[in-house]
């Protein structure tokens, strides 16, 4: 069954926390991965791969650069399920 947006957000926050140590509560929809959360491109790729695994979706490498905010990623994953 497809997960809701808030469930995807919670799952993504866990992945971000595991990779970067950033508190899950700080991972909010409007936050930018690079500007607000200070996540670099290599960590971002790790997060993407773990998200693909966790949510059973495929996020093409070319698409990653369009995922500016946490909300972008949550929406992409929610729609791709």
């Amino acid at each position, binding site marked *: 069954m497809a997960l809701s947006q808030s469930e995807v957000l919670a799952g993504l926050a866990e992945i971000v926390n595991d990779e970067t140590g950033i508190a899950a509560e700080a991972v909010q929809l409007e936050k930018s991965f690079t500007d607000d959360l200070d996540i*670099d*491109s*290599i960590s*971002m*790729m*790790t997060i*993407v*791969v773990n998200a693909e695994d966790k949510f059973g979706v495929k996020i093409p*490498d070319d698409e*990653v650069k369009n995922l500016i905010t946490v909300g972008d990623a949550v929406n992409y994953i929610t729609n791709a399920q």
Partner: protein
Amino acid sequence: MSVPTLKQYETVKYSRIYSLGAARGDLTVTNDDIAGPIDSSDEWIRQRTGIITRKRASENLSLMDMAVAASNEAIEKSGIKPSDIGAVIFSTITHPFQTPSAATMLADKIGANPAPAYDISAACAGYCYGIAQADALIRSGVAKYVLVVGGEKLSDFIDPTDRTISFLLGDGAGAAIVGPSDTPGISPSVWGSDGSHWDSVGMTASLLDFRDGEQSWPTLRQEGLTVFKWAVWEMVKVARQALEVAGIKAEDLSALVTHQANIRIIDELAKQLDLPEHVVIARDIVNTGNTSAASIPLAMHALLASGEVKSGGLALQIGFGAGLAFGAQVVVLP
């Protein structure tokens, strides 16, 4: 008239690495030395690559000089004579001649003339490809002792303004003498390629483009994130497969010696493999940089020299890079 029975090679059951040799560039290049043209900083480079300094060769130190030095050390430690070498395999992408090969010159310089000698082009997987070939040549009886060299002078093919790969790169050569063994010393190899990503790491242009004035001097480039993703998550599968075909478990390893591409790749690979704490992870990149085909033998040599690992232990070595090409095997440390 009866047809006489042909003789064929008599096979040998096992092979092993007898010894290693290492030579690094004579210059120590700091992050501050190269940060300017890429608008970067020591901190940025350390954080993203783990590199503090890289070794590069000065104008007076050639790829061949480093290969000869590494080979001579390996030969001396092995206890064999250079004239006993039955094949010389040189893995490099930076020999500056299309032909003849670097290997024939190397064979002559180290006293292995007239051994068969040839280069292989498998970039950062090249040393593991070389070990796979040496193992096959020895066990099939084609050669008794094989010299495998991974060597690069990458600094001849870098662009100081390139932010994708140039700042990672260093120069050096690592050599191994491989020969017959009473006990298994080299596992089956897991090796292969994925040419569908042919252009994700490589040169900015062909030599023909350069000749025709359409492009400047070709230098190395990569699509960093695509390569990172492949190097970690696809190579974890290869590493697990290498352990499986070797018939061992991660806890049996003394060391993980990956191609020294980037500390983030090395650490993520180690994390994904869930290695027990006693497994030493080679991080020669910190002070050597990424030396492509040379990086695995250099890193293994450094671990043995520092005493972090002991001769007789098992190491998983895995190379991966342009092609995309990959190779892995478990070896008994010399």
